[in-house]
């Protein structure tokens, strides 16, 4: 799928601001993910062309960072932190409840394609409001089973926060791309 014109323009504009166009790799990957929901090898090839850099460089960078997705996911992204400060406030119980209510395992997408959820050991920066999760990068703090219920209910019908995610993403629940680096 070729990149949309505004995405190409955005990448060019970003690249022009940096003293080195290589610095625009991460912004370019964000722009692509924003448009398409994930980053394919083909779009990395396009980024390479726009920036005049070897495709291997784009792939090397993209594979290091855990937030770039290699395949489509649900319309909404739900991440719940289970690191120690959150664990102390009951994050394990909330993560278990979330999984149970969604009916899919950690890292999977609900059958209706609405929500992909996973637990993370990476602190999300809201320990003061633990247990917490990020819903499409927005903080939901002081979670209770009731709050989780109402968030899920909202997400089931809400459209994706930006850019249409391909419909095929919705079809099946399957393990998500591994988020760890290396």
């Amino acid at each position: 799928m070729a990149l949309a014109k505004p995405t190409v323009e955005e990448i060019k504009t970003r690249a022009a601001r940096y003293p080195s166009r290589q610095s625009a790799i991460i912004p370019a990957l964000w722009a692509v993910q924003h448009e398409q929901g994930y980053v394919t090898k083909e779009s990395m090839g396009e980024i390479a062309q726009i920036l005049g850099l070897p495709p291997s460089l784009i792939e090397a960078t993209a594979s290091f960072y855990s937030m770039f997705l290699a395949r489509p996911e649900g319309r909404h992204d739900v991440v719940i932190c289970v690191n120690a400060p959150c664990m102390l406030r009951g994050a394990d119980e909330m993560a278990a409840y979330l999984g149970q209510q969604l009916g899919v395992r950690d890292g999977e997408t609900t059958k209706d394609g609405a929500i992909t959820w996973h637990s993370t050991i990476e602190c999300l920066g809201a320990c003061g409001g633990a247990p917490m999760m990020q819903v499409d990068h927005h903080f939901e703090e002081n979670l209770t089973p009731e709050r989780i219920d109402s968030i899920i209910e909202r997400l089931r019908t809400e459209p994706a926060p930006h850019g249409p995610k391909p419909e095929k993403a919705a079809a099946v629940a399957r393990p998500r791309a591994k988020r760890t680096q290396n």
Partner: protein
Amino acid sequence: MGLKPVLTKDFHTENLEQLSVYERTGGYAGFKKALEMQPDELVELVKKSGLRGRGGAGFPTGNKWSFLPKGVYPRYLVCNADESEPGCFKDRYLIEKSPHQVLEGILIASYAIGCNLAFIYIRGEYLPQHEALESAIEEARQAGYLGKNVLGKGYEIDVILHRGAGAYICGEETALLTSLEGYRGEPRLKPPFPAIKGLYGKPTVVNNVETVANLPHIVINGADWFGAMGTPTGKGTRVWCMSGHVNRPGNYELENGTPIRELIEEHGGGVWKNRKLKAFQPGGASMMVLLPEHLDVGLDFDAIQKAGSLAGAGAMVVMDETTCMVDAARRYVKFFHHESCGKCTPCREGTFWMSNLFDRFEAGEAKATDVDLLLDIGYSIDGRSFCPLGDASTWFPRSVIKFFRDEFLEHVSEKGCPFKKMAQEAVA
């Protein structure tokens, strides 16, 4: 001592994130005053104030600035907003509430070091905070605080907001610079330090969000005013992020030297559910655990170090008597394993094996001798890894073994986690 809102003093003001409101609270007066000064005077002022970096290492900010070699241009300022230390959420708070305060600090620092292009490296997870900074930069540009000729004073400055994409290691300054250059975020060898050869091989200063947020206040009120707060070697205030088993978790800005007891018992409302304090951890995931006997230690870089831990990035994780210290350490070790960049063997392999051993303890599959095996792996990482991430991965677990070795042995003898069993029995 006690609560001392300097950075947070106007945080109750509604719409403080808007330029006009920020200006009404005295915003950008510091930058205007700075532009009337010579850059060297500013460096001296910050040196004299005694401000130390708030990112974790506590290096004197003015000294860091003065390491830039004379006459080498361009030079860059990078504001480190890659806050990812588990337990820390102060930079997020400072950006959310007052993005202009952070930006004003960046402008002052840039002017002081003679830089015309500054960067803010913000972690990918902080999307709303990214948006807050983005609109602040735009507003400031419209108002003439950024541009080719700032406020008609002939100074040129632009700020680029750069979003990371999920890598704790990029909070380490050399890894941050590598990432900003578009590469995998792996740390670089020091020396050369960034001040000599940093971003794009040019002299670079990396300052934390909270550090730069102090600058407008120092410029306006002077070095003596700043120096009058805090302790002789820890001037000013710090925003402490308190989490875990307290009644009122959250951010508290306290004068340096305030006793830890006051933070936890008074501001945090004490340990929750009328339980007893078991341990607490200043500084974030990396830092060594402290015990109730350390409650009267002051919140200050040097005092906490003397007590056997480190103040780091200003987190305070409180643990009550029901906490499984083995599981707490297990989470942190897993975190470091997940975040190890893989560049050096001690960290990449060591965190993997520590993580495996901790899983065995928690699952009741460990042997008593595995405690010493953990220590052994810890010694093989600490001081032998390429950057502080590896070293720091061992500090908390080793301190837990030092103070709570019995808990590890109980996991062995009970063939599982005694605290989980207790919790289950309490429910049943």
